[in-house]
């Protein structure tokens, strides 16, 4: 089943996409939405407002002509391009707000809502909103993973768990074509930002302490891999990632050419995105603060904050703004800047007991529980991702920690070897995460840490969109770990995250 109206099939895909895009613009002002194939020029610096301020995206060496560029051109049969789910206004990811806007403006005809993964399942009637509810309500794209896992890092894998489908509200984990028996498992995840890539690819140390191995080597260049690209770490380098995305999300029938891969990789390594201005606090790179994407562009990636520049010390100067400087601000601006600076300290210094969290409390040897703060995992200077491969189970996708949702599939995982260190032999999960790549029961529920820049532009949060806003992120951690944040601390953390 296809979402496009019958008459549309007569049009070449590129022309159709352009028509939808122009129709969606509604004026001369360049639209927030970058439609595939529209041929706009991507400026060297591009600003977009959001609820918390202004996001800035830098393209090193820009401006960039997007006409003919494989990131921006529709490459597959559905008329999608990479930019469809990696929008500059959304910090090179995709917000629910943008998805809804495109649905409303195109009556669901935008290539974003392609049946393959922009709907809850291709078997559903594609012209109905409810068939796309996971994308429209939580920003989730369907991700189809092979079952059983056959290899990881080039080595054969025999999974040490079985998987059954407890419930399948969308039909994509049962029937003749879908589900474990058909060799496919459908999970639903947020698109990860294609920006600030040098940080996600950076390698700080030669070991993965969570897996107890030296880092795997990149099959292309023989260098250690960061393990921080994808939610389930199924792609260790950009080539594998883009080939995976082209074959699935873009539904390309042919492989990317070497020239296309080179152009894509070159572009992805040149894009930096971060909040530049706070609506309440003003310029994030003023009065000694060093927010914004310029610093991301100019810093060396991969540094551990605990032995170098502390994480979010970009806002240290705002911990004590001199009186003469403070006098230049409105009371609201001053208070907001102070709150951001406090939030950075809370992020680094507020200790709590981390419990029953694979990737932290097992198998690494820190103990269960272990006392630490947010920077225990979000430890890379300037960026807040994990210097080590960041596969951690916060419980966001797995019972009993995950919120109860009736619109996601629920899987029953049974460990056939050693039980999971925290869940035991039987685990109920909406998304086994890294286990679908490694084949290990101990990895069920582990999701690679999220990128923390540009958060204001791309709600909702966590891999399955469980937090609809930044406060929801803080509230989840409070529920999960009984941290004991004060109301002030919660607001300070929200204000910090809104400024990244």
């Amino acid at each position, binding site marked *: 089943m296809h979402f496009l109206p019958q008459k549309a099939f007569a049009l070449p895909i590129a022309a159709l996409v352009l028509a939808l895009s122009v129709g969606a613009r509604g004026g001369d002002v360049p639209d927030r939405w970058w439609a595939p194939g529209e041929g706009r020029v991507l400026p060297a610096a591009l600003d977009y407002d959001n609820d918390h301020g202004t996001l800035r995206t830098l393209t090193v060496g820009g401006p960039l002509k997007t006409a003919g560029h494989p990131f921006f051109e529709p490459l597959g049969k559905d008329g999608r391009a990479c930019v469809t789910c990696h929008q500059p206004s959304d910090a090179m990811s995709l917000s629910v707000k943008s998805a809804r806007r495109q649905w409303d403006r195109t009556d669901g005809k935008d290539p974003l809502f392609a049946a393959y993964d922009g709907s809850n399942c291709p078997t559903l009637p594609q012209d109905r909103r409810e068939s796309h509810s996971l994308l429209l309500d939580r920003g989730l794209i369907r991700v189809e993973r092979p079952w059983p896992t056959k290899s990881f890092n080039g080595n054969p894998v025999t999974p040490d768990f079985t998987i059954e489908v407890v419930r399948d509200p969308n039909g994509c984990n049962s029937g003749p074509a879908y589900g474990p028996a058909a060799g496919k498992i459908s999970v639903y995840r947020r698109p990860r930002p294609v920006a600030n890539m040098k940080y996600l690819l950076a390698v700080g140390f030669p070991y993965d302490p969570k897996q107890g191995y030296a880092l795997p080597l990149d099959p292309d260049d023989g260098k250690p891999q960061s393990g921080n690209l994808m939610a389930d770490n199924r792609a260790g380098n950009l080539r594998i990632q883009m080939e995976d995305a082209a074959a699935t999300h873009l539904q390309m029938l042919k492989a990317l050419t070497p020239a296309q891969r080179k152009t894509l990789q070159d572009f992805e390594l040149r894009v930096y995105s971060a909040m530049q201005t706070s609506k309440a606090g003003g310029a994030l790179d003023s009065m000694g603060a060093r927010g914004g994407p310029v610093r991301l562009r100019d810093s060396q990636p991969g540094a551990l904050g605990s032995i170098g520049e502390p994480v979010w010390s970009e806002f240290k100067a705002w911990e004590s703004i001199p009186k003469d400087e403070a006098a230049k601000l409105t009371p609201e601006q001053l208070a907001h800047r102070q709150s951001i600076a406090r939030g950075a300290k809370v992020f680094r210094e507020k200790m709590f007991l981390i419990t029953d969290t694979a990737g932290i409390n097992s*198998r690494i040897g820190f103990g269960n529980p272990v006392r630490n703060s947010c920077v*225990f995992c979000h430890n890379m200077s300037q960026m807040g991702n994990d210097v080590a491969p960041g596969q951690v189970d916060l419980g966001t996708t797995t019972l009993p920690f995950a919120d109860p949702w009736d619109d996601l599939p629920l899987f029953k995982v049974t460990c056939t070897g050693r039980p999971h260190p925290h869940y035991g032999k039987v685990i109920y999960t909406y998304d086994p995460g890294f286990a679908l790549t490694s084949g290990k029961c101990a990895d069920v529920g582990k999701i690679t840490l999220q990128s923390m820049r540009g958060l204001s532009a791309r709600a909702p949060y966590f891999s399955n969109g469980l937090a609809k806003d930044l406060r929801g992120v803080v509230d989840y951690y409070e529920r999960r770990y009984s941290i004991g944040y004060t109301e002030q601390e919660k607001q300070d953390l929200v204000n910090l995250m809104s400024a990244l």
Partner: protein
Amino acid sequence: MKRLTLLAALCAATSAQAAQDTAGLVRFVACPVYRDTDAGRKSGCWLADDRENGKRWDVTESPYKPDWNFAVLVEGRPSANAAQPCGAPALDPVRTSRLDIPCTRHMIPAEGFPGRRYTLPRRNIAPLSVARAVPPGPYAERVFPVYFEFDKDFLVYQYDDWLIDNAVTWIKAAKPKKLIVTGFAATAPETVSGVTIAERPEAAQERAETIAETMRRLVPGTAVETKWEVAAQPTDEPEADGLPWQSQRRAEIRAVF
């Protein structure tokens, strides 16, 4: 590598020095108790009670720490430091291996004890961006041991990574013809605190293969051969910290020219 014959049954055959080294060793199985001290990150205390004599020990300094849901095999030596920041005499050196024996989790408050402020352990590695000093030659056949938790093949953070980093730095400089990795497992059953424990024979092969794969990743292009042995005997290598049981649970990387 010089081997020790160990423990009571074998003491008579060992040197006086070795006998002295094994004196005072402590080994027992217990459900761990977490004392919630707060002196900053990683500052909580781990306590374990030897039920045979009623003694409570501070076992916090283990490189692999307990999980409050499972029993631990405690192995250590009473610390020379009499301070009790966790409210019990400390074992140091000490190891706490997680066993597959469920425990009722138990956390007690700090009760005025400060815990220990975290300090970076001696065995920590520098980031990749920091160049390693080239070890001086001449280079000849050499063996590098790596140690494991009971019945596991998992590389221990801030222990095994440091041991391997040192080995790899030397191997890169020495350029041996090949590496022979031998995994060992302590498979002889022993009864500790009324619990019979023995490592699985498979653990020896798992350790060999884990270290071999690690070598392939860290020194690609160097030939790596694997072997494994059960019924492992203790050694007196210093990085096992004088704990004979720890020295049994090892893999050896032999650089051959």
